[in-house]
């Protein structure tokens, strides 16, 4: 394998991927228990992308995300406690319970947030890149986007703005080949979405989204190019969901053989294997990491459960300002 990342990076990648896996798997249970309301779009199966991308970014960079945003949020280093608290609509949550799953943001740390509007993260991300340019900063902004969003006008308009202004912007299209139940083949004649970037003069790549290391390397290169003034860059990462669109979607329309194909290329397994194979991490160490992350999630649930909700008085004060 060409220039493997450092052990530190590999461990970070595995930890992040696994943390997302646990968050989603356990989060779904909380949802099924009725503790979480509204929409919950699991990131299961796509962990490799957020994980690889964020590992390649620096502090001071920005990310913008989608309705399927837990993974990006975690990979960007969010506090799982505050995430769970948000899902449980508690005052300690990232949005104090005002936002929920589709709106978790951490603006103080450069996470512009999940978004309930498909495609909206792209202009917002380009805007953050523009703000960086105005400030004279070399910060890079990544927008995580989707195959569905690539058919939306915001894709063309905002990527084109990033291009003519040479912004430090990376558009990561997570092509999981479905928009709810609609297959990508029904939504476009050319499923290779990166070509749309090329057509407007944007350097564009395709990568196996289930390979966190490949994603990491490509993003690292892209970020370097951006900081050297050669942005924006588009990365199409092919992937597949492990389940339906949201928790309540059985996803029966997903062919079993394709699901099996992608599950055999599970990004969390790959991250774990990399740590084992490249760095020779012993099983005990893997177990320890996994145990630690599982405990972290339990603690987060405990924390969230013990947190309070916004009071009527606090709410009235909030409203008064509108």
């Amino acid at each position, binding site marked *: 394998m060409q220039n493997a990342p450092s052990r530190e990076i590999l461990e970070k990648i595995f930890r992040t991927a696994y943390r997302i896996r646990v968050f989603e798997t356990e989060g779904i249970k909380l949802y099924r228990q009725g503790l979480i*309301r509204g929409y919950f779009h699991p990131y299961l199966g796509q962990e490799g992308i957020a994980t690889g991308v964020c590992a390649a970014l620096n502090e001071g960079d920005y990310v913008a995300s989608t309705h399927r945003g837990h993974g990006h949020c975690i990979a960007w280093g969010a506090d799982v406690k505050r995430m769970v608290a948000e899902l449980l609509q508690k005052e300690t949550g990232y949005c104090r319970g005002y936002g929920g799953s589709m*709106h978790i943001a951490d603006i103080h740390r450069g996470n512009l947030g999940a978004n309930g509007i498909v495609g909206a993260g792209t202009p917002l991300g380009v805007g953050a890149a523009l703000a960086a340019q105005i400030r004279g900063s070399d910060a890079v902004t990544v927008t995580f986007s989707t195959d569905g969003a690539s058919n939306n006008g915001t894709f063309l308009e905002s990527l084109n703005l990033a291009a003519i202004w040479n912004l430090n912007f990376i558009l990561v299209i997570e092509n999981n080949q479905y928009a*709810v139940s*609609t297959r990508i083949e*029904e939504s476009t004649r050319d499923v290779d979405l990166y070509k749309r970037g090329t057509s407007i003069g944007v350097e564009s790549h395709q990568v196996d989204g289930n390979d966190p290391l490949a994603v990491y390397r490509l993003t690292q290169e892209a970020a370097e190019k951006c900081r050297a003034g050669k942005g924006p860059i588009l990365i199409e990462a092919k992937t597949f969901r492990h389940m339906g669109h949201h928790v309540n979607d059985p996803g029966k329309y997903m062919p079993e053989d394709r699901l099996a194909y992608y599950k055999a290329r599970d990004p969390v397994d790959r991250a774990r294997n990399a740590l084992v194979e490249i760095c020779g991490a012993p099983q005990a160490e893997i177990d320890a990491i996994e145990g630690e992350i599982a405990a972290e999630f339990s603690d987060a649930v405990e924390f969230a459960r013990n947190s309070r909700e916004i009071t009527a008085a606090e709410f009235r004060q909030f409203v008064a300002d509108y």
Partner: protein
Amino acid sequence: MYREALREAIDEEMERNKLVFIIGEGIAERGGSYKVTEGLLAKYGSLRVRDTPIAEAGMIGVGVGAAIAGARPIVEILYIDFAMLGMDMIVNQAAKFRLMTGGDGRVPFVMRTQGGAGGGVAAQHSQSLEALFYHIPGLKVVMPSVPADAKGLLKYALRQDDPVMFLEHKHLYMSKGPVPDGEHIVEFGKGDIKRSGKDVTLIAWSNMIPRSLEAAEALAKEGIDVEVVDPRTLVPLDKELILTSVAKTNRVVIVQEAVRRGGVASDIASIIQEEAFYDLDAPIEIVAGLNIPIPFNLELEKASVPQKDDVIAAVKRCLHPEQFTARAAN
């Protein structure tokens, strides 16, 4: 059921007129997120029932173009919030084409969508935005509250020639009520008295109708007799029905789920005070959503839109304004 009534209307009109077709996200094989279009693909095929990519501006625009060219499209937009992506096509094209062509061009376009809060879907999936369409001349705005109206109004929508914003409510799809079989048409501009009463005129629409009726029943137990008027279509508005009721009761409460500021309730109030000023024995009470985006937290969400008790309190205030306003007592 409301959603079945809608399906019946679409089905009957597709049967009746080969130029009626429907497009939207996941409406074909999946039958739509609210199951309104279930079975239509099997019956009418993929030419007339088709899924779209996530491209609201495009699908609304294409629908408007198809309507201008003489077809009768129904475009389903999953959430009214997403219609914001297609506002240019609605406001600058669909609504204006008729006037801009001096009357020659018609746009028999129906956009079906749903709004309203509930269930913690948060700020971008909970809005009640009828006021935006209401303000744009050239659009019809339809907001059925019961299954029979849903059917009759949708059938009518599919037979007339102006762009229609057909606004459903996410909480009404499973609501029950009698639905006449076959040829049941409800014309635009004809309101309906959902409960007659003599003490107060309560005007509401969409999901605020069942809520207001509950409030009215509770009030009836206290001897307060509320008349619940459902305009059913906001544009055109059945002013006559409203003014007749006001002339009888001399007191008005308007209940809307949308935020208070700049809502349709304000406009109806402005009309009543303009045309029936001397009929009013008390200020018109408006019960409406708070002036904020809808929060995720369920308690806050509930606090953000009118509840039964808010309606009850408003009716009482307008029956006894002197208890609430110093000036009224003089």
